[in-house]
């Protein structure tokens, strides 16, 4: 690769897929595995083009090194068996998941059911809000995945269409800065298949040996909670941007009620929070960035003493009459011992726009709940 191919720090208008592709390119993966089925995203196509132009020194089929792959909706469903292998073998794969509804009937939309189906597959899962955060999180994901204390795959999810096809002005970091940021994991001892060096992989495991696999995996997941914050602090020192680590609190300090959400709609929720604040409502927001491991302690701390909680999401947890985030929050808040009214709002299915009005309605119902008004556990905003 020539020096002229190295990226300099620059501002550029990019859609979500290109933002992800730049993030990946800056991390110089050795291997990109590709399973080009429908649905596919232009993310990998950008990487093919750069590879063809000599801008990316990556092999698309190999057996060791820094790796990347991307998937989307039904693609993620189809890879389910393979999905379970990288975390079990502690392989630090980074994968982009461009969220789409996984469940039939056929449609084209940005629900989060695809990632919810696999949330318990043992991966670290991070979900982001805008194009800059996509790029930055790709870079942080490698640092996290390849950390010797972690060695787990990271799935970076961003809402299909709403972010994948949204063009925003982003700052692309310089290659030299990303190289410096990733230097601590440059020579990490990656597992590799080498005929001359005997190694056992994915062998038959039973009894206490399997317990050891599980025990270490679970312990590594817990370490992620601290590591995410440390990695982001180092990222901030070099690049000047941060996202709150596990969760971001927005105007929660003196808030009486708090909305909790994740993904692209968080930006719209911020707009509504500002409007409601101007009208005198003491309302705040928690953005959940890391979904696995679930930041139960951080969320419980942030929500202590709040009078009502509204959870906004675009996925359903069959059998719980709620979304998944709502159910996770219920578990996380169980330790608080004070029954806080919690209302769940689902929206954004089937390409339905998550409007400011719908979010405002969620805020109003949550406020009512804090004042003792009766409310439904689950509100379908599109049916309101």
């Amino acid at each position, binding site marked *: 690769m020539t020096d002229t191919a190295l990226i300099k720090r620059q501002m550029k208008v990019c859609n979500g897929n290109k933002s992800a592709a730049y993030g990946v390119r800056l991390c110089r993966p050795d291997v990109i595995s590709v399973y080009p089925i429908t649905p596919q995203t232009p993310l990998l196509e950008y990487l093919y083009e750069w590879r063809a132009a000599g801008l990316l020194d990556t092999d698309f089929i190999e057996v060791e090194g820094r790796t990347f792959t991307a998937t989307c909706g039904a693609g993620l469903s189809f890879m389910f068996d393979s999905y379970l292998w990288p975390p079990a073998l502690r392989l630090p794969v980074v994968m982009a998941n461009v969220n789409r509804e996984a469940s039939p009937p056929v449609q084209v939309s940005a629900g989060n059911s695809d990632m919810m189906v696999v949330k318990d597959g043992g991966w670290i899962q991070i979900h982001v809000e805008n194009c800059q955060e996509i790029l930055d999180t790709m870079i942080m994901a490698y640092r996290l995945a390849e950390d010797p204390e972690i060695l787990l795959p990271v799935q970076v999810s961003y809402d299909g269409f*709403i972010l994948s096809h*949204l*063009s925003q002005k982003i700052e692309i970091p310089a290659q030299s800065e990303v190289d410096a940021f990733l230097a601590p994991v440059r020579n990490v001892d990656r597992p590799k298949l080498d005929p001359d060096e005997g190694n056992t992989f994915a062998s038959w495991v039973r009894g206490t040996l399997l317990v050891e696999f599980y025990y270490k995996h679970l312990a590594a997941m817990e370490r992620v909670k601290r590591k995410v914050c440390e990695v982001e602090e180092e990222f901030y020192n070099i690049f000047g941007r941060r996202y709150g680590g596990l969760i971001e609190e927005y105007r929660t300090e003196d808030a009486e009620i708090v909305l909790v959400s994740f993904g692209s709609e968080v930006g719209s929720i911020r707009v509504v929070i500002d409007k409601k604040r101007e009208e005198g409502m003491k309302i705040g927001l928690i953005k959940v960035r890391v979904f696995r491991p679930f930041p139960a302690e951080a969320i419980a701390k942030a929500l202590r003493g709040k009078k009502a909680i509204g959870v906004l999401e675009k996925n359903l947890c069959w059998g719980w009459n709620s979304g998944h985030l709502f159910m996770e929050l219920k578990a996380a808040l169980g330790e608080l011992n004070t029954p806080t009214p919690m209302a769940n709002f689902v929206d954004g299915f089937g390409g339905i726009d998550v409007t400011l009005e719908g979010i405002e309605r969620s805020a109003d119902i949550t406020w009512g709940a804090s004042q003792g008004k009766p409310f439904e556990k689950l509100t379908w905003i599109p049916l309101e």
Partner: protein
Amino acid sequence: MKEIRLHGLGGQGAVIASDILAIAFAEEGKEVAAFPAFGAERRGSPVAAYVRFDDKPIREKCLIYTPDCLMILDASQMEANSTFAGAKPDCALIVNSPAPLNGFSRPNINLIATIDATGISRQELGRPIVNTCITGAFAGATRWVSFESLVVGLKEFFKGAILEKNTRAAQRGFNEVTVTKVDH
């Protein structure tokens, strides 16, 4: 923040036009957000695309319901009431039309700009892909962005002879747009 909504038919380049405008605004230091209406892409079916620009970061991800400007790439979209829904006061209307719109009146549309984008695109590109011409007409009518910044956007999508042709189409849109102020 200003919000622009583009209405056209699949194949006319509304989505690329929204990206060209976003790059042009970013060139002038603005924050931008450009995105298409999502669905199954089909040539010839109605499509919409959206552009926001502002001095501050743009956080909302919802569609645009109260546009400051409407860009109509195909006259057929003038028939639908939904095209004009939510127009803000002082909304600008940029229409692909060979002639001024006589007797046209819609609430809040205070500026009507017409451009024969189909004719110009046929002459300059040899085909009726009207998006680059109408971005030029937009810049000429609203002056919200300079023609030079628009060219930065064009360069992101076109190269060589195709870039030259599209730059000419945009330049003619910029020069030849007819602007009428409407008093309600």
